[in-house]
């Protein structure tokens, strides 16, 4: 099976600890092999019941301050991140 664990980790925004990489990779391969044995079913008639959607309306939850307390860094009413634009 042609896939790269390093590439998958990159897509998932994760680093795999190099000390345990071999063990992790072997385990991952075994799970992928287990999951590879699914047969191909054609379409059947099962139609899920439709969901009743609520209005997509903005509301004021009044908890902005509490939310901001969970942020790693919150300055002048903004969530901050490292600089993304070089100048």
């Amino acid at each position, binding site marked *: 099976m042609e896939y790269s664990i390093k590439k998958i980790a990159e897509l998932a925004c994760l680093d795999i600890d190099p000390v345990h990489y071999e063990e992790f990779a072997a385990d991952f391969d075994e799970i992928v092999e287990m999951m590879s044995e699914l047969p191909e079913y054609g379409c059947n008639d099962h139609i899920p019941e439709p969901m009743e959607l*609520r209005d997509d309306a903005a509301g004021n939850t009044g908890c902005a301050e509490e939310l901001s307390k969970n942020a790693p860094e919150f300055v002048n009413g903004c969530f901050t991140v490292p600089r993304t634009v070089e100048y």
Partner: protein
Amino acid sequence: MLWEYTATELIGMLHRKECSGKEIINDVSIRANDVQPLYNSYITLRSAADTASDTICKADECMTLSGIPVAVKDNISTKGIRTTCASRMLSDYVPPYDAFAVERLRLAGAYIIGKTNMDEFAMGSASDTGFFGAVRNPLDMDYSAGGSSGGSAAAVAGGAAVLALGTDTGGSVRQPASLCGIAGFCPSYGAVSRYGLISFASSLDRIGFMGRSVSDLKLLYNIINVRDSQDVTNFSKKNSAEENADIKGLRIGIVKEFSAASADSDVTAAVNAGIKLMELSGAVIKSVSVPSVSLAVKAYYIISSAEAASNLARYDGVRYGHRAENFKDLRDMFVRSRSEGFGEEVKRRIMLGTFVLSEGYAESYYKRAMAVRRQLCTEFDEVFRECDIIAAPVYPCAGIRLGEKTSSVKRYAADIFTVPSSMAGLPAVSVPCGKNSKGLPIGLQLIGGRYHDDRLLEAAEIFEILRGDDYGRA
């Protein structure tokens, strides 16, 4: 001691004025603090001395759960109380709102005694993948309490709570209930609002209930099973009008494919004895077939991992959650924060989900798994035309020894009895039915047709009465 009673018994005692709500809360809180170093069932536990709160003051008011301490799994949001999902990622997270289920508990007068330990983000089956250490089984501390709702199960079994909320994605309420010798109920998908439940796999996640008797499960279910427009998958459809509560003529299906799956002999013997007991009381036993059961575990791990990869993409260290201290740039901050914040099992599931959704693999993994799920639903629909409930084991063995090294594939395969009904959104309950030679409890799983939750609970209660013995106390 008051902590030894079921919620139903305690409510009766309160009505007869044999004890007060404050006495119950104090007694259970003292017990919970005493056993916490032994079982590690809580991540956040309110102090036994914390008697000045508003909730305690309401302990003797006449609400359904006044004076009843209820534990809440730590992936269910509680306003102002830290909610960690047993992850370093959320180790300091304090939700600004209550989950709908918690709001219902508070309205019913319940005392939220604490937040229970679990597998990280509910991914695991032994409550040993979390950041706060493993949960020990109160019946034998060399063994796990099961997972992922192991803390809730251990708290109820060990007298550290009277009732508990857990969550069940592939068996996470039923399995720990079975391993700890208590009752655990996973309602139909959609029967209970998921608003405020921190998502693992949204199409499978359900809030479930734990107690020392089936009547306690009914009590909790009736309080929380209320329509909530905040969860679009919440559906108030009920089929209670034609529910048959009589054991005579109750049609119990035995799934051939479950019988073919390997379970320990003591588990099979206890489950078969439970089924025989119902047959002798007038139930009709039928052999039925759900061929796709053998594919359910594989499809489940594809679908749940895919949804986990998507749901957990939100943890990037920006708005909440762990942020790494040292990083080069924004991308590096994401990678380091996620790599430091998540444990090994969570990383494995995110990676699996990323893989099955990636270009070139989604057709042969994710789409096939979804087709298996639809096929499984169709097969269960057919079976429930012939029978009222299905009886099966919960878990292939009676105990999971703590620290035992097992491959991921083996651990996942052990979910064979719980995952099929999870995939089909069916209600299922675990009721203690026996013990193995070491005294570890074994659960009987009863599965109902979709939205036939009331009938299922009635059948479970009848079984509990027929069984007679009291398994619900550590």
